[in-house]
């Protein structure tokens, strides 16, 4: 007989900021495995955009160096103002933004999947929104926003999401 160890809290979120940031970075990368960008250009680099600055940029850069999305190189782009927002496959909207979400969403091109981390943002139109629930990182999904972004999200991913109308 072998012993299976039980670390009930192993999968609970570690308290420090760095842990949360790298987990979010990993989640964003993992999203790409379950999503197909049907309406976008699928030949070039895979672009992940970040509005402003965020602590996830470090871990995300690290992932981008060692991984790819279906054979495509991952490129991280930073948009310091809402006007600067260009096309990206995934647009990460960090919390504590000077610009409000509707303004940012207005600038977002079709084919861009928005990911935010502010409670209530999913309801406001962000496709995916990270929340902390029971000490664990979870994500909300807005099906209308996903539909509007013209991307196809696998049910394997959606079943883990908290669906928001």
């Amino acid at each position, binding site marked *: 007989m072998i012993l299976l160890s039980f670390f009930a809290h192993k999968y609970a979120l570690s308290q420090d900021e760095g842990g949360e940031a790298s987990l979010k970075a990993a989640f964003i990368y993992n999203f790409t*495995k379950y999503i197909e960008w049907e309406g976008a250009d699928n030949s070039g680099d895979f672009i992940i955009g970040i509005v402003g600055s965020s602590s996830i940029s470090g871990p995300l850069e690290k992932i981008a160096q060692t991984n790819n999305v279906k054979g495509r190189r991952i490129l991280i782009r930073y948009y310091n103002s809402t006007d600067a927002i260009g096309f990206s496959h995934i647009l990460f909207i960090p919390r504590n933004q000077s610009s409000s979400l509707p303004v940012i969403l207005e600038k977002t091109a079709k084919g861009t999947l928005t990911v935010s981390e502010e409670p209530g943002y999913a309801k406001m139109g962000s496709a995916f929104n990270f929340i902390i629930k029971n000490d664990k990182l979870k994500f909300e999904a807005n099906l209308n926003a996903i539909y509007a972004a013209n991307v196809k999200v696998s049910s*394997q991913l959606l079943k883990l999401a908290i669906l928001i109308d």
Partner: protein
Amino acid sequence: MINLRNISIQNKLVLIQVLTSVFVLAIFFTGFIMIDIKDYKERKVKSIQSIAKVLAANNVSTIQFQDNEAAKDILSELQNVAPDIVRAVITDTDGNTFAQFSKTKADSSWFDLGNKTFAFEGRHLYVTNPIVNAENELAGHVYIDCELSELEDMKSKKFGIAGISLVVALGCGFLIAFIIQTYVSKRLLFLVEKMKEASETNNYRLVIKDDGKDEIGILIKVYNDLMYQVNESQQRKDEFIGIASHELKTPLTSIKGYIELLNEMETRQPQQIFIQKTKESTAKLEHLIADLLDVSRINSGQLQLNIEEFKMDELIDESIDSISAGIRTDHTIIRNGTFNDLTVKGDRQRIEQVLINLLSNAVKYSPPRSDIFVSSTIKDEQLIVEIKDFGNGIPEEDKEKIFERFYRARNTSVHISGFGLGLYICSDIIKRHNGKIWVESGAKGSSFFFSLPTIKKSIPI
């Protein structure tokens, strides 16, 4: 240990039949049940493995997004899909439990499958399947513990059916064996019966009919051939007795005549004594030859009865008188019991022969100075004559045989001359009168009985 030779062929056949069917069925059922169990296990492995595969596929994302609650929800749904899964665990690549579903109390121990993907242990089936993501990277493992509850049900059901079938087969085996044995043991027993009959009646002319061409048929044919030979030699013997007795009688008659003449002519002593001795011996010889002639007549069926009506009591008295006249020892023959003055129908001379024979036997086998009782009674419309002596008695095993031809009692201390034909002739005469002859004997002597039907029932003239 039961000696197989002592079991009757009938039972042997039944035994063979039943043992064969039981043996064949036992092998048959064991094989089938084992195949069934193997099939069931294979099916179970396949179904649990496919469940494990589905679980693995469905948990790639739960592991990637570290959502062990979702994983647990997926595992919990197993209860509806496969109720016999008692425990399912998802581990990550380090072997740590990521999510677990358990019907019983969670147990941290797990059966070590080693490199195998499944294993049977006791009443449990353990299955594992790797969780591999889209990039073909190992993300974890699914472990399933399935209780084989149906297996026990299946086993008891199958063994139950097998048991019932065995009982039915036993019944059928018995039935078939009983039907078959009539063609074997019945014929054998029939043969034995016929052989006994031949032995008892000395009738070797019986031919046993049997159409069988098997071993028993051969046996019966050989028996018939053998009996034919026995019958042949028996007939030759009878012919010889007939010829011999006739051929002996002629010179004896002439000897008797000349001795009578000599007896009248010769008055001198000791010639007269020698003549008397010769006369006695001649009488004995005549008696023996007469016995042989009677036997010959009995054998050839030429013994004719001269039926007439006569009074039995008179005949008894006459016989006692004629015996008493010849007795040189000091026996007393005493007429005993009531006089019935009964008339019987029969051959007076032959019945007298019987009485004389039995009386002379009684005299021969009795110790000196002992009495002999003769009585006649009527019982159940039968006239029964008893001649009782106080001799040594007859051993139990000889009681039946003494009425057989040429039978001489072996263990007698007294040497008695004769062929051993007297009682045989008596028995035949009485049987021809529809009567019975028998002996009762003890340590204090023997009683010879013969019965004759009284006038109403006696043989018609």
